[in-house]
């Protein structure tokens, strides 16, 4: 019988907070896994991030759809026992504390492996589980700094800039998701459970699709450096001004011939300074200036874009986030997903970008209130009595809040 969802029956115990871990377990939940999120008594700190309505964080909603919420004081043995009991019967554990914290809670890999040898445990951290930087506090941008990413953003003679979005966190969540599923596949084919050690720094460092090799293979002759609005080694490639807009234009290989003709600059095609990729790289200021001059003469960015795209020269307008959300293509592909939250009502978030023909629709899901499922999980999953649960509440091992 074909399964009802991609991860029908897969059980995940999720100790993660903020973005990287929650994004991973959100994807698991969206593809059919049962996810129980364990939060401290005062909740995942993401519950404090904007926007808020009646104490409810839309930021939290975005990253925690489809999970049940249990709030526990993990420093207490009774809470650790609850976790151990849940993990005995689970397939996956995800956590993104600083390395060492799970050990303090008696839930490091050595402890959990003893409880459940078939478990797949994924630790996501900023710097990995070992090494000199491992215990530093980590955030996306800290990882970006140590991966040489921030240094590559901005004008060469000015301070670096950063992108106002956490592509490190979100895409690390996706890497973790992929590693977990690969480990589940391996287990299904007879392999054992295992521990996955993923970190933002290393994932971000892998985004240097060129720089590392270029620096090493040129023996340091080429040192990667931020190059502002234009590309460091290719031309024409970069962001140009046209009227009131910025446009991205790129023309490598045969596209360069088309662009030169489109700009009425056939003369450049016979000029040895622009003969091939390497020559155009050497003279990139002149190449980029030719593009800018042409755009200045056109003035209207819509017209320029139409000319470029009709000639199949890679080009795009630089859009703001609101413009992206309203774009006909975005709408046609349903890239903006509207979820209905019990507090917020309809709320727009980016759709998770994996598209499966067998399961084209993402299920309707909400994010749990803090501790919303404490009673349900304790009584239905672990068979605790009402008295037992009342004692845990009185002792402050569990609590719940409508946030």
């Amino acid at each position, binding site marked *: 019988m074909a399964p009802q969802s991609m991860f029908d029956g897969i059980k995940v115990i999720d100790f993660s907070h903020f973005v990287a871990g929650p994004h991973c377990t959100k994807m698991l939940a969206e593809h059919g896994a049962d996810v129980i999120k364990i939060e401290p008594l005062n909740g995942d700190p993401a519950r404090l991030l904007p926007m808020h309505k009646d104490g409810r964080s839309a930021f939290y909603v975005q990253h925690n759809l489809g999970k049940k919420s249990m709030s526990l004081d993990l420093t207490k043995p009774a809470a650790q026992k609850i976790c151990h009991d849940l993990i005995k019967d689970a397939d996956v554990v995800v956590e993104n504390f600083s390395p060492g914290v799970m050990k303090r809670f008696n839930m490091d890999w050595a402890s959990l492996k003893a409880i459940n040898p078939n478990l797949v445990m994924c630790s996501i951290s900023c710097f990995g589980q070992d090494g000199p930087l491992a215990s530093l506090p980590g955030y996306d*941008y800290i990882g970006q700094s*140590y991966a040489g990413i921030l240094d590559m953003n901005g004008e060469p003679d000015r301070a670096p800039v950063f992108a*106002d979005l956490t592509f490190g966190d979100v895409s690390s969540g996706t890497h973790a998701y992929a590693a977990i599923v690969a480990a589940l596949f391996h287990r299904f084919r007879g392999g054992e459970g295992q521990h996955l050690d993923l970190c933002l720094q290393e994932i971000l460092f892998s985004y240097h699709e060129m720089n*590392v090799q270029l620096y*090493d293979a040129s023996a340091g002759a080429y040192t990667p450096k931020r190059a*502002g609005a234009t590309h460091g080694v290719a031309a024409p490639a970069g962001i140009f001004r046209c009227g009131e807009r910025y446009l991205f234009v790129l023309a490598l290989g045969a596209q360069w011939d088309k662009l030169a003709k489109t700009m009425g600059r056939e003369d450049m095609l016979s000029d040895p300074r622009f003969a091939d990729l390497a020559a155009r790289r050497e003279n990139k200021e002149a190449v980029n200036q030719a593009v800018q001059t042409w755009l200045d003469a056109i003035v209207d960015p819509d017209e320029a874009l139409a000319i470029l795209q009709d000639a199949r020269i*890679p080009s795009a307008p630089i859009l703001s986030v609101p413009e992206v959300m309203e774009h006909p293509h975005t709408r046609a592909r349903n890239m903006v997903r509207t979820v209905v939250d019990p507090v917020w009502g309809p709320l727009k978030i980016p759709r998770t970008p994996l598209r499966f023909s067998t399961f084209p629709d993402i299920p309707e899901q909400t994010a749990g209130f803090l501790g919303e499922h404490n009673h349900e999980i304790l009584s239905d999953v672990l068979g605790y009595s009402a008295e037992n649960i009342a004692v845990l509440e009185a002792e402050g091992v569990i609590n719940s809040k409508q946030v």
Partner: protein
Amino acid sequence: MTRKHVLDGVKVLDFSHFVAGPHCTRLMAEAGAEVIKVEAQIGDAARHLPIIKEGRSGYFIQHNRGKKNLCLDLRTTEGQEICHELIKTVDVVIENFTPGVMKKFNMDWDAVSKINPDVIMCSISCLGQEGPLAKLPGFDYIGQAYSGILGMTGEADGYPALSGMAFGDISTGAHAYGAIVTALYHKAMGGGGQFLDIALLDCLFSYHEMNVQVYDASGGAQVPQRSGHQHAFVAPLGLFKCQEDYLIIVAIGAQWNNLIKLLGREDWADDPRFANPLVRNENRDEISAEIERWLSTVSDVTEAVRILVQENHVPAAPILSVPDVMAHPHMQQRGIVQTVKDRIFGEVKIPGAPLRYSQYPERLELQAPFLGEHNEEILREQLGYSPEKISALQASGVLSEKNV
């Protein structure tokens, strides 16, 4: 059964080129999958990207280790027949042509699923398989422009800035890998084959962990705009100058209290203007001025980071260049910089694949193939072609090979 890695025995037919697709199949090859990369006679365009040594591209090596290579003319019936026969034998087909191109080669999902209903086909594209923009030529930065990423990068009053790396391509490759292993798992559970439509645009747009929701939930009052050195919505989160260098400070949670203590501004703890990260952002110039005043009293950026992080538990980091990162002891100890040894190029450093499995802690030794290197082997061993038939295909130009 002993396996060499988690995807040991999984067979992949790979029509991809440049970065996004090849990165996906690199991750698969590094996890033990058997990947056959199919290239046209002119070869993957990535073979022409620097650094080139004796005709061999270091760029190509980075993204194509561990794959076998079949070089054939996909426009010919014979070339397509060979691919159709291989599709019968594989678990996964991957491609990243512009939408429509696989159909021209008689290998769109319709055709592929008829040949092998159990196969998983993953199409990676810049803008997706349908929609008004689908057929535009796509590159990483095109996806970044249409997803609102470039618009969010740079100084508010200046040009947007390009990141000097293809994070869209690489991370989309990782998304595709995640989707493929999901579909493999589902297939193993009895779910059959399926088609995966993975787009750079979708992946890049999902990186707005805050912007989409904030814009929507504020009813448009909070409009995401690039803000250069400081975060658009929360403070303090941004880049600061210390002597001649830069560092980043992130103190939006409980660390805020540690930071104001260090700055000698405990009075801000009860000040409503600094009550939470969102209102602090409205008063961030005042905060930045205090931080910069403090930084001017510190000898250098290393010392500033030490005081912030070690003594005060305020998250901070120096802005490192790529060479700084490569030389960093942490990278060395974790083996994040991987040295691979190519048969022509010799040793070259690349970023190691970032997925670490406790059952397979060692990386597999892998080589990047020459163009058409495994033509004969694949046709003979996997499809049972005779030497005569192979020679005929070579003579008619359906097959070709080159040591690059």
